[in-house]
């Protein structure tokens, strides 16, 4: 088994004007997905990120504070899973709840260094 990271990006919920009812139904889907991954034993961890961004860039270490409204896409969170290969993670990612909001799942393999 290898470890992979699923990185979620897309529009922030704040900027989509979701209704309380819609947000609740999304929560239900996130819970169900988390549950499913736990039960099948693939879930290794994860975090959600707040939408505030501080960006430090360039040789001058220029600092910019951004809000989600100022960037097109924002990384909203990630999950760590253990899986056989990319295809396996792709299968897991089928239940990601926010595809209909044009959300993206980026799958990356955790690099393991052999000595």
């Amino acid at each position, binding site marked *: 088994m290898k470890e992979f990271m699923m990185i979620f990006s897309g529009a922030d*919920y704040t900027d989509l004007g979701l209704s*309380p*009812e819609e947000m609740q139904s999304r929560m239900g889907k*996130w*819970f169900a997905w988390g549950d499913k991954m736990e039960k099948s034993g693939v879930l290794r*961890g994860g*975090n959600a990120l707040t939408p505030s961004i501080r960006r430090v860039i360039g040789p001058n270490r220029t600092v910019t504070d951004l809000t989600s409204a100022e960037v097109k896409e924002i990384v909203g969170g990630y999950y760590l899973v253990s899986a056989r290969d990319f295809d396996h993670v792709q299968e897991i990612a089928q239940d990601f709840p926010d595809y209909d909001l044009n959300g993206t799942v980026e799958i990356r393999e955790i690099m393991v260094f052999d000595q």
Partner: protein
Amino acid sequence: MELLKSEKLWFLTNKEPIKPQLIDHLFRHHYGKMVSVLTRIFGLSHLEIIEDAIQDTFIKATISWKNTPPEYPEAWLTQAAKNRVLDIFRKLKAERKRIPHIQSGMEAIAIHDLFLDSEIEDSQLRMIFTACHPELAPQDRIAFALKTVSGFSIKEIASALLTKEDTIKKRLTRARAVIKSKAIVFQIPQGNALPERLESVMEVLYLIFNEGFHSNKKDILIRKELCAEAMRLCKMLFKNKETTTTAAYALFALMCFHAARIDSKTSIDNELLDLRHQDRSLWYFPLVKIGDDAMHKAVDNESYSCYHYEAAIAAEHLKARTFEETNWQAILKWYRLLYDLQPIPIHLLNMAVVELQDGRHSESYTLLQQLQPESLGQRAYLYYGTLTEYYIQRKDFPKAIEHIDKAISLVTNQLEKKYLEKKRLSLLI
């Protein structure tokens, strides 16, 4: 190292991980509660800031719950709303707006108490009375109530009422402007003012229910949601002694009786079915029972409202096991009493329909002749539909077709139009 790992992954080792069961519509209902409470603290003039702040708490919930779902989601949301109180204070201060004085500890306790269940209910009732204030235009009342009390988004209101989002936005803006310009106070009216204001509240709830019950929206879920929401709001009236009236019970009973039939109103392919063709086995009798109980409370005194008679009529339909067993005489009696109380043309038309169902053509025709179709407004097509039925029973088919054509040309509801067209076709065969 191994220990550290297992601690981090507590949710894998925990035998019974906490899985919050989100009650249906928890967010939506909570939104209404919290907006009402915060409005009580800060006043109606800050409604927009309050609505945004509550919306923020839900956003926050969706982010933080993904990893650590709270054991008591509702308590979490309430706490989040409480925390927002300070944020709003800061925001109002920064904008140099008038803010309520909260300095002493007593007042802070008072704010805390406003989040108790009974006080939340009181705040929500205040919001209902605000939304249904006679100073607001009738259409604006519905939109405003669905937004602030029921926690519907503009998109959801537009979709439920078959209206454009822009129209709903305008209605909400207008409602807020009227509340400001007329300095409407956030309270449950007392004394002499109460009966009239309560009348207005019941009318709005009745309209919301009808929007759901008579909508031609394909999506039965949305129709049911509107009906359920009207019933939920109606039930809130029973949380306060002053607003628990026999008329309110009658209105609630009426809603139960109608709602019990909602599944049988349309066929599987969303074709409108009349009472004769409805599958009565689909009627939901637990709801009829609740309506019955409410009706018993509604007849506690002798003063009957139009809701009493409408509920009685709905109950007569439910009593009949088959269409043929319908007690048309009883229904006619209720309609006459209803018309005495509320002499509006539509009741007269319904009486004509009932007479016709019972095979009394000439009585029906006499009633129809008292009617000006124009006086029925958008429902003028029903007048021609009834005349069609009259001519069918008289076997005067050319006249029947002539009138059904008029009905078809006037009807706006697509489901009803299809129903009439199908009937027209059957006349040609």
